[in-house]
Every structure is written in C-alpha cells, then in structure tokens.
C-alpha cells in the first residue's frame, strides 16, 4: 500500500463573471489565494513548500507569462513554476511532487481573463499547425469542434434532441450554483428552436466566456489531517496528449480522455467505474464534450439510454455537472478544470471523476471523501 496519500485541504475563488473590470488577474488570484489560505490558517510564506501556476502566454498577452506567477500567491523567493495547460494538470504535478516525499503542502493556481483578450479568434488560429492547417483559414475554432461534434454524434447515434436534453439539464443545474452567471431554465424545445451556428452546434452548445481565478491547496496525509477535518482525497490521476493534427485523431472518440481515465481508474482501483462512480464533473467547453468524455471514459455503453432516462441528470445514478459546467459558469480558459474540481469538493458524497480537456490534452482526477 502506498504510504503517501494526497488530499485537497482548501480552495478559494474569485470572479466567475463575464467581465471583472475592477480587478487585474493578479488581484483576482490574490483574492482566491487569500481565501484558500485563510480557510485552513496557512501562511504561504512559511507553510507552503511550492506553488504551481497554470497559464498560457497568448491568453495573458504577456510573453514568458510565468514571470507574473509568484507575488500574488505569496511565492516570491520560493519554488514556483508554471504548467502550460489546464489547472488539473497543475494539480496532477502537485500530486506527484507530494508523492515523492519531498513536499508537504503545495498551492495550485489557474486563472483566465478572456474579457481582456482582444483577438480571441486570432489566438485560436495561432494554435493551429502553421504549415498544414493555418493556411486553410477555418472561419473559427468552432468549425473544428463542430466536425468533432458531428463525428461523435454519428459514433454515438445521438440527435440534436439528445444534445438538447443535456444542455437543458446542465443549464438548470447551474441555477443552484453561486458561480454560474449563464445558468438558465432553457427547455429542450427552446434549444431546438435555436438556429445552428455551425452545424450541429447552436448558440447554447458553446460555453460563453467568464473571468475567474481559483487556488487549491494540496497536502500530504499527515498535514492534510492537521489542516482540516474533511480533506478531499485524490485516489487516482491520469493525463494524456492526443495528436495535434485533427485529421490524425479519432474525431468521434476522445482518445486522450480514454487513456487518461484508464490510468486514473487503475490507480484508484476502480474496476467498473460506470457503477462505482457517484458523480462526474466533466469539461463543458462545448455541450457535446461532456457527453463525449462520459462515453470515452467507458462509463456507459450506449449514451442514449442514460441520457434519455435521466441517469446523467442531477438525481440520476451517474450525475454529470451537478451544479452546471462551463455552459452555466462560463469558460475561464485554464481555470475550467479547477472550477470542476471545486464543484466536486463542494458536493463530495462519494467517489467521483473530474475531467478537463483543453486542446488535445485531457486530465482526469478521481476524488473521494
């Protein structure tokens, strides 16, 4: 048995609003960090061994953006580094660091301030292969995701009505959240009456953007028990990067999520995760992605049945995004995975899977009380 367990002892957040004009990203991270530390009485200058920040140069508008990581976390002149990817990848690195036995307490930060990005579409275009893909001049990134959506719906025999069931359910779940400015009581009929923007996706399939920052504190078992009575234990982690070129990928299935979940479930000892998991917090950058993850993780055999029977709803046997996902909260770029993890920690009533899927990289965490 592995002697070092890793627990989440606290988190704090700031924002979750379409725009936060009154604070800079550093002030938002400071607010989130202060809350996270205050909850468990930590002084970051003396009690935190290392700090992880998750962000990307182009979204920040700053080259070498990791320069701006330390001060607002209390990490100046301490071990600090940046992961370029979703916040869950930062959590996974912190998890491994504690597992080595050399670190006890680590803070992980991710933030996104898309309201300040003036050239969102151009940045998405810059993510494409400069030689083979960029010259094709896709009108927007949505067109690439629409191809995936179409392939996935064909692979899973889903109709737009099925997507509507999910969107309606997730947006309603968001009404119970204090971080979900875009939640609504959208009905399936209203969804189906929307014009397709880029088939098969309509307006409500695309996560709106929001500004947010989250800071998590992870600790080794001994320290976690000193700091809180109710740590969230991480029992498995997995992550994977699929091919960058869309035409090399299997568009109907998410191989990165499949590989990452297999790794995480193996560590967590979950032989039949579809039955053993009490909930899923899924990446919802696009509506279909949450369903694709549930399917790619092998949690259901035929998506149509649990979706139509309500098994994936808040009261079902495998609820997905019980307080809404990015469709309700908005998409705070790299912080989306941490937003999902925050929801998991808030409602933790069994073993759950938390998934992020940014670009062609997926990360999966298995958590339990």
């Amino acid at each position, binding site marked *: 048995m592995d002697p070092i367990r890793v627990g989440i002892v606290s988190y704090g957040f700031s924002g979750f609003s379409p725009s936060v004009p009154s604070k800079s990203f550093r002030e938002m991270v400071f607010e989130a960090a202060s809350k996270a530390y205050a909850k468990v009485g930590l002084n970051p200058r003396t009690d935190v061994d290392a700090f992880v920040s998750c962000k990307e140069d182009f979204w920040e508008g700053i080259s070498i953006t990791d320069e*701006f990581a330390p001060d607002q976390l209390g990490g100046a002149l301490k071990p600090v580094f940046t992961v370029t990817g979703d916040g869950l990848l930062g959590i996974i690195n912190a998890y491994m660091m504690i597992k080595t036995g050399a670190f006890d307490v680590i803070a992980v930060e991710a933030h996104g301030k898309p309201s300040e990005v003036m050239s969102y579409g151009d940045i998405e275009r810059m*993510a494409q292969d*400069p030689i083979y893909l960029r010259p094709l001049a896709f009108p927007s990134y949505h067109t690439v995701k629409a191809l995936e959506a179409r392939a996935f719906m064909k692979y899973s025999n889903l109709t737009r009505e099925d997507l509507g069931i999910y969107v309606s359910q997730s947006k309603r779940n968001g009404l119970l959240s204090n971080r979900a400015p875009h939640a609504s009581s959208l009905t399936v009929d209203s969804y189906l009456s929307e014009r397709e923007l880029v088939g098969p996706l309509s307006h409500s399939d695309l996560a709106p953007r929001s500004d947010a920052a989250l800071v998590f504190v992870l600790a080794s078992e001994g320290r976690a028990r000193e700091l809180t009575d109710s740590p969230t234990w991480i029992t498995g982690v997995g*992550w994977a990067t699929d*091919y960058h070129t869309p035409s090399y990928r299997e568009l109907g299935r998410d191989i990165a999520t499949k590989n990452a979940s297999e790794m995480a479930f193996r560590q967590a000892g979950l032989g039949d995760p579809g039955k053993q998991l009490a909930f899923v917090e899924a990446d919802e950058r696009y509506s279909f992605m949450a369903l694709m993850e549930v399917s790619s993780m092998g949690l259901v055999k035929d998506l149509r049945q649990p979706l139509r029977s309500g098994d994936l709803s808040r009261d079902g046997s495998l609820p997905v995004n019980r307080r809404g996902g990015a469709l309700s909260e908005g998409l705070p770029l790299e912080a989306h995975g941490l937003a999902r993890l925050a929801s998991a920690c808030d409602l933790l009533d069994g073993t759950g899977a938390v998934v992020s899927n940014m670009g062609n990289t997926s990360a999966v965490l298995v958590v339990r009380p």
Partner: protein
Amino acid sequence: MRPNINVKNRVAVVGAGLTLFRRRLMETPQELSWIAARQALDQAGLDFNDIDCVVSGSAPDAFDGVHMKGEYYVEGVANGKPHVRVFVGGGTGVFVPVAAWWHVASGLCRKVLVLAEEKMSSASRPHPQAVFKHIWDPLVEKPLNPNLIWIFAMEMHRYMYRCGVRKEDIALVSVKNKRNALDHPSAQAAAKITVDDVLNSEMLVYPVNRLDVSPVSDGAGAMVMVSEEWANRLTDNPIWVEGVGFNLDSTNWTNRDLGYPVYLKRAAEMAYRLAGIENPMKEIDVAEPYDPFDYKELHHMEGLGLCPPCKAAEVTKEGLTQRDGDLPTSPSGGLLGVGNPIAAAGIMKAIEIFWQLRGEAGARQVKKDVVTGLAQAWGDLMQVGTVVVMRR
C-alpha cells in the same frame, strides 16, 4: 520542503540526444523534437512505445509562433501518452528534468522522455529580440519599451561595481566557452578568440559587447529518465539525479539587488539538501552554470556556492574553470559557444553533465575524475534559478 526528506524512488538518466544548434534550421519544431527524442531513445536502447510519460519544456510561445506550442511540437513523440509542458522562462531547459524527476520519484512513471525544444529564429523580423518587447508589466514597464539586453546590462554593471570586476576578466568566460565549443558537434558559435576580440566587438549597451552575448538559435535536446529498476535493466552506467531545485523571485525585478542572485542560492540549497551536499565547493566536480552572457557564468557560480561571492572572476582568471582545472565550468562550450535555443540550451547543459559523468564527452571530457556534476539555468525577469545535481 519536509524537514526529513525521504525520497523512496531513485531516478536515473540513461540516454540523451541533441540536434544541431543553428540559426534558421530548416526543420520544423516537431521535427527537431522528434530527432532529439530519437537520439535519446537510441542511447537508452528504447523505442517510443516503451516510454510511459513525456515531460517537455519550451520558452515563450511567440518564438515558435504557435499558441499552446507544447501540444504542437510533441506530435509524433507523445502520441496519446501522458504529456505535460512546464515553463519557467529561460530556466525551463533545466526545469524539464526537475519535473521529470518527480514523475519518476512519485512512482507514477517509470520511463520518461524529457524533451526541450526552441525555434527562435523565425519568431519576428528583423530580430527575435522583438518577442521580449512583451515580457514586461503591461502598465508600469511596457510604456518604457525596455529590452532584455538593456536590463542585463544593468545587472552586469551592478555586478562589476559590487564585486570590483573588470570587463577583461569577464571576457575570459567568453574566450573559454567559445573555445570549449570547438569540440562540440552541435556548436553554432564556437571560435578561437581573445579577450581583445571581445572588448573590441560591437558595443550593444554598455557594458555589454557583441561577444559577451550568446546567439539566436534553433534546436532541441532530449533525455530519458527512468526508475531504479529500469536503470539497472537498461545500463551498467546509469547517472543518478540526486538533487533538484528551483526558485522564483518576485516579478518586481527593480526592487532587488542585481549584484547577487538570491533566488539561485535558494534553488541550489534545495538541490544540495536533497543530494546531501554540504560543501558544494568541494563536492561538485564539474558544473554547467547558465551562460547566456559571459558575466552570468560568474554570477551563477557565486549563487551556486561554487566559489565565495565576488570571487568567480578570480577563480576563472587562475584557470580553475578550464577543462583541465579543479572546477571545470561549461566544458560543453555553454550557450556562448554551443548556442542558445533557450529551453534546448538548458537541457544541453544537463545532457553535458550526463555525458561527462559517463565519461562519454569525447574531446570535451574534463581531465579530473568526476563523480558529481551540476547543471543550472536562469531566466524570466532575472528571477528564476533551476538546478539539477547528478551523480555517477
């Protein structure tokens, strides 16, 4: 860190590879990454399918001109496997093996491909330095339009003033490293030059002359790091990663004494503590301190505790840092000689220590018997130190 360090799983390096370092290489970032990875795997006796995790590093996205470039350049290398890109500016190259260390030491990965890539030369016209126009605080600093050579000139000047070091003493580093690089097959800026050549080269920003500075480069480097069990299976000659350290100072670079790198001292202390090193001056046999500018090698030797503060120039002048000296530094030829594709340059330094400890450095092999070596990198706003200590 924990008061009692008890790292169960030892981590070893068993292979390394390096592309040519050149300005305007024809290969794409993906091709450079693949070439370096293939070489490292060949030395380790492994194939892509044998690897279970990939850790990569690269400096600003703007160099390669691809947003989230880590996902792009690992095509053909990661292929559905766990991959993460880490980033600490110029310190990234040595930080990649640091992050790979915990991938293995945690027990989660057993065979890790460690990759660093940079393609600077196509970044912007007329010169990739333009990328550095956007590294500043957008409100307070950017309106002044500073550039990197300008602030490093401030640091160099401060160091010279604080330690009473002369330009000609600093130039000795450039002379040594460029000459060492004559024996490096990847080298881009190897040369046999004199102190006068450095002093008479074009003045960029006082006190920085053209030959005080490393060039713009493209390149990639890779290592294979494995668990103890796999190290013993794969080779009779593993090199153990015994200490890792990293430290990041405040973003507010204007508020610190530029004459001495406190962040590097802290990073080195972390690595020495893990490696059980109490007296680095005696225990480190060979070092690759980061040398994008010649004064930086001296500055870093002092931060690493390889000599007392303000004594590095003296040590260099006495010849102790030559390949046949008591403390050989940058036997590879360093960034000044081999070239400076930012993250790839850092990993080149770690790779050189690996080859030196294995006795595989060929014409670059240092004269003394070496057991413990150290590689270090530096970056951001004169802010980050990354250190890796390896033993035979």
